[in-house]
């Protein structure tokens, strides 16, 4: 996603002066963004900054109050919601969950041989090939994310939208997910993720958008993860250090002296 103008063939989605609101409260204001083919972008911002609304505007489930959302005609989109919104007690196995993406009508409810082979192939590709018969609640956080990515991939999307994919997962799972998304992007899939995780996820992505109702900055992490952009985005002072060639964001706590200040031993 970025602000520069594209030719039609260079873009999958374009938001122009987009303003969205729930009742009278604006959530997005005058947002100009473009998603190009092959792009891998992260959207960062505080809670309530409009990250999820931005994804929903791209999906078309939230309409613009003003401005416009343009999608390339015939664009195949897939959406992976936040895992917190999933009903984990719902009685579905991994196979049943992934097959939901096959929305074509059949005269019988069970999967065809081709569909079963497709599901097995996509689960294998994501490293969870042996889990098809498991109930979704019996999986780890990373495996649960992979199931929903598998469901999205079965729809053969050109653009994958993911809402907080690393929310609540451990470091190892986050690394595995990041590798997986990088691999998918390298295979040609365009990806947009929202995240709160500045250091664990956002700093590793090729492109970032800082959002707080308006776009506060867009570009490579090195260009937008700056103290100035982050303060405008989060409304709080932050310090950006460098570690191993990567930006590392730390809080600058201006509070009372009886609070132990943050240590910066990891800094170079």
């Amino acid at each position, binding site marked *: 996603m970025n602000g520069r103008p594209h030719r039609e063939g260079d873009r999958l989605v374009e938001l122009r002066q987009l303003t969205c609101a729930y009742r009278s409260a604006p959530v997005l204001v005058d947002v100009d963004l473009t998603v190009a083919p092959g792009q891998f972008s992260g959207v960062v911002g505080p809670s309530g900054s409009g990250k999820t609304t931005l994804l929903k505007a791209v999906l078309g489930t939230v309409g613009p109050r003003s401005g416009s959302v343009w999608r390339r005609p015939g664009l195949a989109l897939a*959406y992976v*919601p936040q895992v917190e919104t999933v*009903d984990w007690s719902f*009685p579905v196995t991994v196979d049943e969950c992934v097959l*939901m993406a096959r929305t074509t009508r059949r*005269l019988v409810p*069970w999967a065809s041989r081709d569909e079963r082979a497709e599901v097995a192939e996509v689960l294998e590709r994501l490293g969870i090939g042996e889990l098809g018969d498991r109930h979704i609640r019996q999986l780890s956080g990373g495996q649960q994310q992979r199931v929903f990515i598998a469901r999205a991939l079965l729809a053969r999307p050109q653009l994958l939208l993911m809402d907080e994919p690393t929310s609540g997962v451990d470091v190892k799972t986050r690394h595995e997910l990041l590798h997986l998304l990088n691999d998918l992007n390298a295979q040609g899939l365009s990806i947009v993720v929202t995240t709160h995780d500045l250091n664990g996820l956002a700093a590793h992505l090729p492109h970032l958008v800082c959002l707080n109702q308006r776009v506060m900055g867009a570009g490579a992490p090195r260009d937008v993860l700056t103290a100035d952009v982050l303060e405008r985005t989060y409304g709080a002072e932050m310090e950006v250090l460098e570690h191993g060639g990567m930006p590392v964001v730390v809080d600058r706590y201006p509070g009372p002296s009886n609070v132990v200040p943050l240590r910066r031993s990891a800094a170079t």
Partner: protein
Amino acid sequence: MIDQLLAPFEFEFFRNGLAVATLAGALCGLVGVYVVLKGMSYIGHGLSHAIFGGFAASALLGVNVLLGAGVWGAASALMISGVTRRRVIGADAAIGVITTASFALGIALFAVFGGAGGSFDAALFGSVLGVGSADVWAVAAVWVFALAVVVLRYRALLFTTFDPEVAGVSGVATARVDALLMLVLAASILASMRVLGVTLIAAILVIPATVARMLTSSFAHMLVGATAIGAVCGFVGMNLSYHLDVQSGPTIVLVGATVFAGVFVATRQRGPAGG
């Protein structure tokens, strides 16, 4: 002993009632899976009460009860579906207003115009008396309709039930699927009302599906299991109704409640299947 158990089968009204109860139990079990998983138990309860208004109006106007209550039920179902999707006011409050107003209208019509004491009790609590072959055909027709919807729209119904937002962006016409489900629910309540009664029908929508949920972690298995449990509750409950001389609705519900309690105790150590 065997002779005693088989004695009621001599009577045509009992054979018809048993067929209707078994089919209605299976039907409510099947549809109940969606009711339970979508958290629509209150809608099922309310819709059965709403249909009572149509039942009363049809009985007093001399219109075919199935037709009149069916139109009334379909209108109520679509109204509830529309209100719950718009979320302008709380869905539970809106359903409470629409359905209890319809129920109250039914009671008021019976009170003002009278003359239908037997059918009034039968509609509220269910009765095997007077169940004819037309009732068997009616519930069988709704059963075929519901089965066709579940089979032909299996994935759309599953996706919409599990994750309506993602289903919508994945190309599923979720509003149409929800409306179709409400029509199936209304038709099921209407067809089952005769033997189960409007005040008790919600229990048979909920109990078989809940029991099946405790036993399986697969959606497909839950559909089959809830249908079978509902059919068994209807069959056993109707037989007990005859032998205990208690109305059919309460006995069928009590059989279901007993099955629920047994499965709940047997599975409480491990929680819901898959959990």
